[in-house]
């Protein structure tokens, strides 16, 4: 029933270091939408996979999960957090960067419907998954949470372009309903639907979504956000305690089944 994420490891195309060009960089409220041209990347990103992107002036690359892969263009949604992401979103279009890609495993397809629970830039891999699911004719429920109305440009860009009627939640009620997106998930699960839960966002959100999936006996997947250096399994930075022993988010994840994670 619950597909261990490790299985996916063996089907993946091998990563390489790709020269990429930043072709678009535009604000989406507090986030930034970046488009990278990756003409040399033969493989296709799967939703949940990530790349490890160089940032000029920084020693380490930054792991980022695409929100779309169309032709040779890969779209990213970046939330400025520390010095690296701040510098990244300030780069002018035309900048040449390097990206290790494609990295990590991806979200497995659901047996039935899908419930996507996200917040902030967690919407990026979820929107990519939603697009894939819609193409496959699946029913997709989206629950997105924010503090206030700051994510309006983000959700418009990533969800509304897909024609998904997403459900919005915010702490102060300025975007959608007041409250957390897990409230929407709880209602859906209470209805007894055959859904697989997917959650990407702050740890507290993913933990709450995982708890609901487990309570209702539904499969669930989260993408764990662990500090990474190499991104490819060599440095052991990204340890994750799982019920099957210690794993590493960059190669065994970032996607884990919610029952596998030692929360």
């Amino acid at each position, binding site marked *: 029933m619950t597909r261990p994420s490790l299985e996916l490891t063996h089907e993946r195309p091998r990563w390489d270091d790709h020269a990429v060009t930043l072709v678009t960089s535009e604000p989406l409220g507090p986030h930034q939408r970046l488009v990278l041209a990756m003409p040399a990347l033969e493989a296709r990103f799967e939703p949940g996979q990530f790349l490890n992107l160089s940032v000029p002036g920084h020693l380490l690359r930054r792991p980022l999960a695409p929100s779309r892969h169309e032709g040779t263009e890969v779209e990213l949604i970046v939330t400025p957090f520390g010095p690296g992401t701040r510098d990244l979103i300030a780069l002018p279009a035309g900048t040449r960067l390097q990206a290790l890609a494609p990295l990590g495993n991806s979200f497995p397809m659901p047996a039935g419907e899908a419930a996507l629970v996200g917040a902030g830039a967690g919407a990026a891999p979820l929107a990519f998954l939603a697009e894939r699911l819609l193409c496959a004719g699946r029913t997709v429920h989206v629950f997105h949470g924010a503090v206030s109305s700051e994510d309006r440009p983000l959700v418009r860009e990533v969800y509304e372009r897909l024609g998904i009627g997403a459900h919005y939640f915010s702490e102060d009620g300025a975007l959608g309903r007041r409250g957390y997106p897990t409230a929407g998930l709880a209602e859906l699960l209470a209805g007894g639907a055959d859904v697989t839960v997917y959650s990407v966002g702050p740890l507290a959100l993913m933990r709450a979504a995982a708890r609901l999936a487990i309570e209702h006996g539904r499969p669930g997947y989260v993408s764990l956000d662990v500090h990474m250096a190499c991104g490819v399994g060599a440095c052991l930075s990204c340890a994750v305690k799982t019920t099957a022993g210690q794993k590493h988010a960059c*190669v065994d994840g970032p996607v884990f089944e919610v029952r596998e994670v030692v929360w």
Partner: protein
Amino acid sequence: MNRLEVEFLGVRFPNPVVTASGTFNFGREYAHLYPLSRLGAVTTKGVSPRPIAGTPTPRITETPMGMLNAIGLENKGVDAYVASELPWLKAQGARVIVNVFGDEAADFAHVARKVSPYADLIEVNLSCPNVHGGRLPFAHDPEAAALVVRRVKDATDRPVLAKLSPNGPLLPVAEALEAAGVDGFSLINTLLGMRMDLERKRPVLANRQGGLSGPAIKPVAVRQVYELYRHSDRPILGMGGVASAEDALEFALAGARLVAVGTATFSDPYAPLKIAQELERELQRRAETWSDWIGAGHAPN
């Protein structure tokens, strides 16, 4: 003419650029990019007698031209590596430096004995804490460090390098290790450091402090190699921030016979190979060989 070829403790290296312990695992992750036999050698992740889970995350964070790590020496234990990774790595045609450590001298010897069939050199990581010596790192205690080296020498016929720490005394430890029969030195390991998280108002790393590596520490590393070369005739594997052929040549001038590339591999997985290739071009341009440079920065002019 191979300008890069270099002999180190009886082993021939096609070029002097090796990977640094803990930054290349056992090479498998990078083997599809280039044949590992094209590197000077692969230094493995540190191997201990039993598996170690390591520290909680976050384990790494970036600093200005450097990074901090507190992996906590995570590894699967010597038996797992002898069963699969080390035979695989040897089968790639790579020269192999196995990095070993433990809680006490007997542990080091145990691991060294088991990995010897696959090791061209044994690198003894003395920066880990001496559990029976009050958790002071071995490298800060000349006697404890010397005991480790004596035991390892007894356990293996491979040449033994002692990996020194930049956080304690350098020359007293080196002297004690020479007396204990060490064959060569490898330095520097990481500098102790810390970064604060302004949002959570606490250290970024779960372990609070970590080891600083990368270009930021290069001047400290070059000086320590220079200092050790002045006082010891044992060959030196130098490291700390090497990210270009020019950096490698700085270490050679200071006295390093081999150089290791660590953190730079995270910036660019091709770095160890590219640095060797750049070195070849640079020495060609100058009509010199790598060996001409070793210790040449000490000339009295």
